[in-house]
């Protein structure tokens, strides 16, 4: 059941399963605790607190005070792309945080938004090389891509589970 709750937190369940998991999580003390803990863990992981470097807050602060780099016209979409790039630079943090966040048990369903860390100046010094196109944001927080990427490539040879664990019937 805790597995189902975990999947629910991850937004991975189809609706009948989700209904069941939601009922379960409210019906028992164990379920409620699991629900709470999975969210807690997910929050800790996803917000970078675990790695000790709160990237998003600083980046969002920097974004507010700096012009866009790539796009010929300012746009809100650019902001998301730049958040992603700045976040991507914190390899160690995301490596420790990201792959656990996605492979362990949890990843919250809400996208990561900036937290209230102080803004750091000069964060985006490395964003360069304009191209002849605008960058549009992917459909969700690009931090997700960063985390997903780090998760797989921190392993020196990523192994699909099917290689070592028999598939379930």
């Amino acid at each position, binding site marked *: 059941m805790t597995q189902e709750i975990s999947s629910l937190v991850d937004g991975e369940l189809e609706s009948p399963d989700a209904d069941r998991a939601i009922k379960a999580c409210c019906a028992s003390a164990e379920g409620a605790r699991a629900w709470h803990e999975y969210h807690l863990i997910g929050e800790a992981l996803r917000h970078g607190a675990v790695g*000790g470097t709160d990237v998003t807050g600083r980046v969002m602060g920097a974004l507010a005070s700096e012009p866009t780099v790539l796009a010929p016209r300012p746009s809100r979409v650019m902001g998301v792309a730049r958040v992603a790039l700045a976040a991507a630079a914190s*390899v160690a943090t995301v490596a420790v945080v990201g792959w656990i966040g996605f492979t362990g048990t949890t990843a919250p369903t809400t996208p990561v938004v900036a937290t209230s860390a102080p803004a750091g100046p*000069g964060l985006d010094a490395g964003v360069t090389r304009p191209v002849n196109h605008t960058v549009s944001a992917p459909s969700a927080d690009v931090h997700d891509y960063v985390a997903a990427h780090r998760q797989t490539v921190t392993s020196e040879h990523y192994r*699909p*589970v099917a290689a070592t664990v028999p598939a379930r019937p």
Partner: protein
Amino acid sequence: MRVGAARAWLPALALGFSTGALAQVSQDPLAWLQRAAAASRTANYSGTYVHTSGERTQTLRITHVMTNGDEHERIETLDGPRQEIVRRNDEMYCYLPDAKTIRLDRRVTARFFPSIFRAPAEALAQNYTLKLGKVERVVGHDCQWIRLDPKDGLRFAQRLCAETGSGLLIRAKTLNDRGQVIEQFTFTDLKLGSQVARGDVKSAFQARLHDWKTDPQPRDETRGAVTGWAILNPPAGFRQISEMRRTLPGRTLPVSQIVLSDGLASMSVFVEAAGLAPRSEGASEDGNTSFYVKPAGDHVVTVLGEVPVAAAQQAARAVSRRP
């Protein structure tokens, strides 16, 4: 086939070179890389290292011990809230500060510096020109620099420094095409061999645990599912090392992910259904990480990796439906 390709690298990684062959390998950069790869898995070591990328810095402590053929490793973050990862062979556990625990099952194993290789040294030699640099004293150890210069514009130069006795990497730098350091790992203290206290691999948190959170059920996203997409002509020197469909937060539909690597650098190619917003092709890079977005009909391709933007662009444009 995909699994086969990934696994084909495993034996070479696992065997590598035994240590103590210093006399034979001393002039051969390829052999030094092999020693470095083997040492990261088989040597006993313990130390603190600093990872710098862009303006961000992270300090971690690692202890790695072989006991009765089992690999034990403990990673602890030293900056910010405490977090710990303990690994025994392929089994990994993560301990969080408040003693909430995630147990990771055998599906995924992660490696940290100094385990940086994703392919045997021979594969690296196809993509990088290997040269030995000088021997320097680094963090109190004699250290042999190994220079990896890219053979094309699709990857960054690497400078690796291997402790001469064990072959273990003490320092690793990534340089951009202007020779600037854009990422670095460096030990600030390092104990080797018998200096390492075996008890150091034991978790500091484990005793306080009251509750295990386990996740025994393999998830589809780590099963290496066929995504229906293929990178028909990947950037030179890159090969596919995994393929999966995964759920990302906030999405209703799964996202396909194909990971390419040249043995050191890697990138993920994501393909997903396009949303309502109009999209256009574009790219950016920051430090060693490039990001490329390309619309493809009713889908969107997003490439992200530690590669020059040219490599990300090639990968994005090589995506097509699996024939």
